[in-house]
């Protein structure tokens, strides 16, 4: 099997497979491509053969009749359709299964936050360090990338991993892989994003376990983040705590396990969350980011759906910091998942603070400002200061409205 795979891979010009999912995907690829190409060739040859075999051999007059042409029996037609249908659905089933596998990262995956912007990739690691255009990962260990974009849609593409995922502004998507080969693999941007789309490339550097820990220990080899100067050396979770305070998260979510308006952050990460609609969900990165952006979608059972959406209020680094902060409270003795379901009565009956619906409490709202600088912002050169959102400068509603609508 292996030599044939390798031969087909070279024939089809596929780059060498360098991730754990690449091999099964390639195998499906080879079976689909060889069967379809063989079938297509047979069909075309059959048509050509008929044209020669049944060509007209003598001219025919205008009054000449000929017997009606034969039609294939119904069972043959239905059989053919049934066969094709089964074949296609079988491929679909295998492909879908693999696709589901691509969507579900193992729980112990190493998280790296990816922020795309025109025309660069920024990778933020849990310890707070950042690299530009170069992603460092250990070999043989699952790595999950959590992607977003600051301006337009980009798409992170690693051909040798057979992986690709769009980075969408205002949304968080994820992608995971286990690298199986040491070395450098190219990263491309696959979603058209403007003038320098074709130059928005980078690379994944796959290190051995020892090299990776050496790399982790050497901050000198990493490029510091371009974010706020104050956070340059701070760990992501310290920054997350600050973000939580700044945006008023801690007014409703405690960090010591006691329930308040919302579930406590303590012990939240990785817990099994009962939802208001009687389903269950694991509080992973995807659920946490989704709940910040779209809190009404999956509401923790026993809590009122009073949390406003933070889409547009939290910028990507803040979200990743928050998630890391919540993650760091994973082992804080708090309530267990089961206890989450029965918060104190006062918490449920407490009316939400005035103005809390649709608006982060206690935090002046930032609404996007005058249009007009959009194009200039959209084309910020790489290396310029990262803006929190494509359109800037942001101005708070308070400033805009004078003393404003905050009660």
């Amino acid at each position: 099997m292996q030599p044939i795979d390798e031969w087909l891979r070279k024939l089809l010009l596929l780059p060498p497979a360098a991730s754990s999912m690449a091999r099964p995907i390639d195998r499906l690829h080879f079976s689909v491509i060889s069967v379809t190409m063989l079938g297509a060739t047979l069909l075309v040859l059959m048509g050509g053969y008929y044209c020669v075999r049944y060509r007209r051999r003598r001219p025919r007059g205008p009054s000449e009749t000929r017997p009606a042409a034969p039609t294939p029996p119904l069972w043959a037609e239905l059989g053919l359709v049934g066969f094709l249908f089964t074949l296609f659905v079988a491929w679909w089933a295998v492909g879908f299964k693999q696709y589901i596998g691509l969507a579900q990262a193992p729980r112990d995956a190493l998280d790296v936050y990816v922020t795309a912007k025109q025309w660069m990739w920024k990778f933020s690691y849990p310890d707070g360090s950042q690299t530009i255009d170069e992603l460092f990962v250990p070999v043989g260990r699952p790595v999950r990338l959590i992607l977003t974009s600051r301006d337009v849609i980009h798409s992170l593409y690693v051909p040798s991993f057979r992986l690709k995922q769009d980075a969408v502004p205002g949304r968080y998507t994820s992608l995971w892989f286990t690298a199986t080969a040491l070395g450098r693999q190219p990263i491309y941007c696959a979603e058209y994003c403007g003038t320098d789309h074709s130059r928005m490339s980078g690379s994944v550097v796959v290190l051995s376990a020892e090299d990776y820990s050496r790399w982790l220990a050497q901050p000198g080899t990493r490029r510091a983040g371009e974010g706020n100067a104050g956070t340059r050396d701070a760990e992501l979770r310290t920054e997350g705590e600050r973000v939580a305070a700044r945006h008023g998260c801690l007014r409703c979510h405690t960090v010591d396990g006691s329930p308040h308006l919302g579930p406590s952050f303590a012990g939240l990460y990785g817990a099994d969350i009962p939802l208001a609609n009687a389903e269950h969900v694991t509080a992973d990165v995807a659920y946490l980011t989704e709940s910040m952006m779209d809190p009404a979608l999956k509401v923790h059972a026993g809590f009122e759906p009073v949390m406003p959406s933070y889409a547009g209020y939290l910028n990507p680094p803040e979200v990743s910091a928050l998630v890391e902060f919540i993650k760091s409270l994973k082992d804080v003795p708090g309530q267990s998942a089961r206890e989450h379901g029965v918060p104190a009565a006062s918490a449920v009956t407490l009316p939400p603070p005035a103005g809390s619906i649709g608006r982060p409490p206690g935090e002046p709202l930032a609404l996007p400002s005058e249009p007009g600088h959009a194009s200039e912002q959209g084309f910020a050169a790489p290396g310029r200061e990262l803006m929190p959102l494509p359109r800037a400068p942001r101005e708070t509603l308070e400033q805009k409205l004078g003393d404003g609508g905050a009660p």
Partner: protein
Amino acid sequence: MIAVKLEPEPMALPPDYLHAKQGPMSWLTTTDHKRIALMFYGAVLVMFLLGGVFALLFRTELLSPRRDIMDATTYNKLFTWHGIVMVWLFLIPSIPNIFGNFILPLQLGARDLAFPRLNLASFYVYLVGATIVLSGLFAGGTDTGWTFYMPYSENTPVTLFPVVFGIFVVGISSIFTGLNFIATVHMLRAEGMTWRRLPLFTWSIYATSIILVLATPVLGLSLILVGLDHVFHLGVFDPATGGDPVLFQHLFWFYSHPAVYIMILPAMGVISEVVPTFAHRRPSSYAAIALSSLGIAFGGFLAWGHHMFVAGISTLDAGVFGIFSMFVAVFSAIKVFTWVATLYRGDIVFSTPLLYFFGFLFLFVFGGMTGVAVATQSLDVHWHDTYFIVAHFHFIMVGGSLTSFLAAAHYWFPKMFGRLYSERVGLLAASLVFMGFVLTFLPQFLLGNAGMPRRYYSYPAEYQWLHVLSTGGSYLLGSAVLLALGNLALALAYGARSEQNPWEARTFEWLSPSPPPEHNFESPPVIDREPYAFDLSEEQIRARAFPG
């Protein structure tokens, strides 16, 4: 001014539609579906050549990874213009508005379309829309790609509004045409023309028209919203004000995926006429071809999400869209098998349209099979937005639609102009079109496998040999298309006079003289048979259609 009275024709026949009235005004204000079809022919060919020139320009740039003849911005504009002109101004209107317009009433035995003035309006609306699009392109041009993805389209510094507004206007023309065809098929069939006797080309144009009427308004809406977002910053899809750019993709592909079938269904219709005519036997299964057209039209509305497998849609959605894509693939496969089976025990005369059918068969089958491959989701993750996809949809949309456009241009040439083209040049051009096409796009499949993303101005040097092959192929393809069209243009003036039915076809458009008179039939034909009755002789056919 003295009107010059023409000498009456020597025969008793009424003058054909080309000579029934004289002077430019008789063309510009005509409501004759055949003349409107010819005006569309001219306009659409201009768009086709323009789109081709754009393609050749950026293919030339791609000969090397460095800057050759243009900078990145110009390159980005050119592939956008190529896509916009080819998709919105050439492929979508081409076969329906030219051959559908000309042939559909003839195949139904009708004297015209149901709403002739609406048909003329459709032409002028198209012309106005195309003019707006082109002026928008030349006045600074868009660089968003023909898909106008948000939020890039909102923030791009170049002109956008005229282009999307022009496409919206062209969409109105499409709705008019589609509505007209559906009404004609329902209300203007000749006596005895039951649904089971409709020629297959008419079936496919009918299915296409359903898509045109249902999907175009949604596209028009989403493009206008893109334009308003760009100009007035309404932020409908802008994440900065809480909008969702993926929602735009849903709206866009809800139309634009069925739009793929707007391009390919009429092409399939042409092939379904060419194959039985030159094999001189009835299609091996009429019902399979007719019903699969409707299956594709409706199934196509449920497959749009397969453009978004890596956009962050839910896994379950992706699964559903994937399986509907497979359904459409099965419907398409039914057609292909039926065409090949139609050749079996036929009485085959090899000619230019049939050679185009072979090109079509090869390109459509290989393109379609790669479609099955990309509908397999885990494989699409690798191929999405690479040259593999570019090659895949060019095989289907262009290889399929362009070869059948040329097949139709040759097949109905005697019907439209009453003359014969040079068969030898026609066969040569058809072979060259095929070879040029394969040479252009086969390397692109390999480029996609190797990991080359689409819409790239520069690329890693190891891909260069494939790009050189592809560019060489595009030059060959361009020359071959010019050769084919030149052959037809020469035949307009110098071609030998054709008989009424030179291919011994059996469908009803050949019952009227070639070229037909102004109102198509001297007396309305009576239809008492299936459209592909090759067991009857030509004399029997005529005697039964016109018993009087």
